[in-house]
Structure formats: C-alpha cells, structure tokens
C-alpha cells in the first residue's frame, strides 16, 4: 500500500468504522430486539415473536401512537402556517437586511430547546408574567391555568420547532425566480392563482423538508410534555423513554422505535420521490 492509499484508507476507515459501530450496529440491534421476547433478567430472550408489534396496535397503545401522530401533525401544520408567510416576507425583505433577519432565525435554531422550553414555563406558570399582566390590567381576576394543558404543549412544540420549518422554506423562497411570478401576473393570473400555480409548486421541496424536520422531532421531544403538559399528554418519545427506564421492556420500546424509524424512511422516501419529479420538471 503506497502512502496516498494509506492516508485515504485511514480517512475513510475511521469514519466508516465509527458509523458502523455506533449507528449501524445499534440500529440493527433495535430492529432485532423488537422481535424478541421480554425477559426480566437479561432484558430480552429467545424465542422471536411479533407480540410487541401486536401490542402496538392494541387499542391502549395505538391510542398513544395516534395521539402522538396528531400532536406532530398539528404542530407541523401550525409551524407551516406561521412559518410560510414569515419565510416569504423574509425572502422579500431588502437584500441588505436579510443577513441580520436570517441570523435572528438561526440563533433560536441552535439554542437549546430545553432552555427555550424552560423560558415558556416561566412565562406560562400561574404566578408567571402573562398572568401578572392579565390580572394587573384587570382582564381576569383569578390566574388562568395555562401550564400543564394541551395548549401549553402545542406552544412548546411550535416554539421549539418553528425555526426548523422556517429555514428550509426560506432557502427555496429566496432562490425563487421572481420573473416567473411576474410572467404569471402578465398573463392575467390573480394573487391566489399565482400562489397556487407558481409559488406553491416551486416551494414544494422546502415545504417537504420543513415538514420532515418538524414532524419527526415532534414525536420524540419527551421533555416538552414533561415540563409543560403534566403527565396526561404523552408522545411516542415519552412512551419509549418509559419502556426503557421505568418498565425495562426493551423489546416493546424497540418496537415503538422501529415505528419511528419506519416513519422517517417513509417521509424521506416521499421527499426524494417528490424532489426527483421536481427536478425533472424543472429541466423540461
């Protein structure tokens, strides 16, 4: 092996080995263990079984999965509804202002979601700022209980994940060729038609990317319902956490994790199909 090949081998090998050891092997373990029997002593044991997947669709647990899907779906729609107009206006801001505005989205993107969730706790709690303002201005006489409600969980999820929706949307909207919009207008399209037939299709890859980046994490962020929702509201994330740390049911927790992985594969698959079709249309 000559010197160049040696360096190449080293550079490729340590990365591949790392991913193989700490991503691939553990990932396969999750899938494998989800098909084994629960065992109190050694966490799991032979024989292979489908019982954990059957349990997942059992009404009791299917309700947890369903609830979590509803939370994620609503969070994604809320983020899209708030984030799309925001990203559009941002991409149409004067060019000299855009870097600063973009920076202001990137900062919360990187800031710890736990710290930001905690900031919401302070704001929403019974003797928190919002109640102080409401009572001070005489709008309410008793503190409104906002913490530990469904609304608080939604606020928390949207607050944490909104930047993940905005950034991919902004990336496609900023690159969009505005001459297409002008052309559509010249040809007599009204505002709504321009949006539905030109802007929306062109921003589809951004919408899809943003939705994936919000939908998937929204299923797993267990500390948000923990801190904002009390114990009633449960995401798949809370469920998996409990299987591993409270009841030590590795196979069941693994099966729920496989459900999340399948969801990820499904969404990425749709994304690649869409973006392939999109790119083909672009070149036509």
């Amino acid at each position, binding site marked *: 092996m000559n010197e160049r090949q040696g360096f190449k081998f080293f550079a490729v090998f340590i990365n591949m080995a790392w991913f193989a050891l700490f991503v691939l092997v553990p990932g396969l373990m999750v899938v494998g263990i989800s098909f084994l029997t629960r065992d109190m002593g050694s966490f799991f044991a032979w024989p292979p079984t489908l019982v954990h997947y059957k349990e997942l669709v059992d009404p009791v647990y299917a309700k947890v999965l369903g609830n979590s899907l509803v939370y994620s779906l609503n969070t994604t729609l809320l983020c899209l509804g708030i984030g799309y107009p925001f990203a559009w206006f941002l991409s*149409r801001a004067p060019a000299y202002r855009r870097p600063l505005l973009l920076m202001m989205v990137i900062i919360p993107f990187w800031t710890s979601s736990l710290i930001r969730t905690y900031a919401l706790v302070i704001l929403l709690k019974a003797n928190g700022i919002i109640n102080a303002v409401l009572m001070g201005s005489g709008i309410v006489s008793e503190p409104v209980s906002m913490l530990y409600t469904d609304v608080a969980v939604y606020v928390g999820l949207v607050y944490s994940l909104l930047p993940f929706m905005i950034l991919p949307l902004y990336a496609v909207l900023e690159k969009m060729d505005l001459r297409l919009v002008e052309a559509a207008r010249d040809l007599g399209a009204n505002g709504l038609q321009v949006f539905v037939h030109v802007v929306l299709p062109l921003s589809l890859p951004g919408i899809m990317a943003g939705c994936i980046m919000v939908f998937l994490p929204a299923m797993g962020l267990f500390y948000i319902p923990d801190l904002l929702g009390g114990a009633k509201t449960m995401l798949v994330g809370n469920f998996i956490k409990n299987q591993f740390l409270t009841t030590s049911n590795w196979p069941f927790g693994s099966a729920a994790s496989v459900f999340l992985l399948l969801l990820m594969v499904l969404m990425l698959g749709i994304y690649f199909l869409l973006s392939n079709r999109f790119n083909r249309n672009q070149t036509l």
Partner: protein
Amino acid sequence: MKRWMGISWVSLVFAFLYGPLLVLMVFSFNQARYTTAWQGFSFTWYTSLFENQHLLDAFVNSLIVAFVSSLAATAMGTLGAFAVSWYRFAGRKIFFGLVYSVMMSPDIVMGISLLMLFVLAGIHPGFLTLLTAHITFCLPFVIVLVHARISGFDPSVVDAARDLGAKEYDVFFKIILPMILPAVLAGWLLSFTLSLDDVIISFFVTGPGFEILPLKIYSMVKLGVTPEVNALCTILFLLTLAAVMTAHFLIKEKKK
C-alpha cells in the same frame, strides 16, 4: 398595505421567538425569589449559582464533554469530508447515506440504541459513553459543513501540489486544511453547542456518577423553578449566542 402586513407578521414571529428568552434573561437579575414582580436589579442568583458546587460540577462536566467530543468529531469529520470529496471508494454512497440518516433520525432512537449497545457491551454509563454518543451526533454536521466548503474550490490546486511532489499528508495539512479552516472552525463551534445543549441522547447514556448540565437543569425544572436556573440558562444562552454568531461569521467569510 402589503408591506405593513409583512413587517407586522415578521415582527410578531420574532417577538414569539425572542420574548420568552428575553423575559428569562431579565428575570435572572430580579431580586425576588417567589414572585414575578420586579423587586430590583441584583446579581444574587448569579452569586448563589457560583456557590452551588453541584451545578458548577455539572457545568464543568458539560464543558469537558462538549470540548473533547467536538474536537474529536471535528478532526474525524474533516478527514471524512476530505475523503468523500477527493477519493472514489466502494461504499461512498453508503457513507453519505449514513451521514444523512444520522442527521435525520430521531434523537430518541439514537439514545435508546446507544443505551442498549453500552449495556450489552458491559460499558459503565458515564463520561466515556457520553463522549461516544456526542461524537456520533456531531460527526455528520461537521462532515456536511466541511464537505460543502471543500467542493467549493478548484481541484487543480491539489493536482498542482501532487505534481510538485507533495505527499498526501502534506496535501491535506498544507493545502486543504488552511483553505477549509473557517468551515472546520465553524463545524467545531456548532458541534460544541450541539453537545452542550443535548438533552435527549444524553438522558439515556449518562450515568449516576457523571452529571451534565442540561440533565441537571431538566431535573431541577421538574422539581420546580428556582431563580438560579434563570441565571444558569441565561449564561448558557449567551454562550450559544457567541458560538453561533462566530460560526456564522466564519461560514460567511468563505463566500467572499
């Protein structure tokens, strides 16, 4: 009319994103312990924070994990990005596939899968398991960031160096590395913040003997809010702010 709609929508969303953080920071300087009423400016909670040995220990642990894991991830990831940009090798596509699937896969799945790996391998949870987990989730970010930078420059530079007799080692350290240094530093800073902020993955791979700050904050907030946490979160936020702004500046520099 349309302009005003735009400005007010953007302002409202920014108020939503920054309002709670601003309140948190302001109240970390509030004298009062139990009420939200303003009782005067004070550094009380910062002082009591620095007298709280448990919190300080957790903070130092977090800094150590973040520093070492981001450094290791940056070194490995830079080599990896160099390899995928300059070499053809079997499994190059698989490599990219792994990088992206790690970035996209839910944190909780990585957390439980590493937990099972460490338990079955008989490795005691603590510093080493945290370090390994943090390197794993930082690595893809470094690779993607540095790869973007490497693919942006002229390959003939490397050919010229090789023609002039540079060894592969020299090509990497004397030609490529200086050119991609801003992206490498940005990758390091962003890995540092990722590591410092992580809750979900750390939650599963941490051990009783080695507490880190985000998990400490998590358990404190579950028990009830204390003003010390306000001060702590303010410090953490400012740290993230500084790292992200520096990283952003470094990434922008390259485009000029």
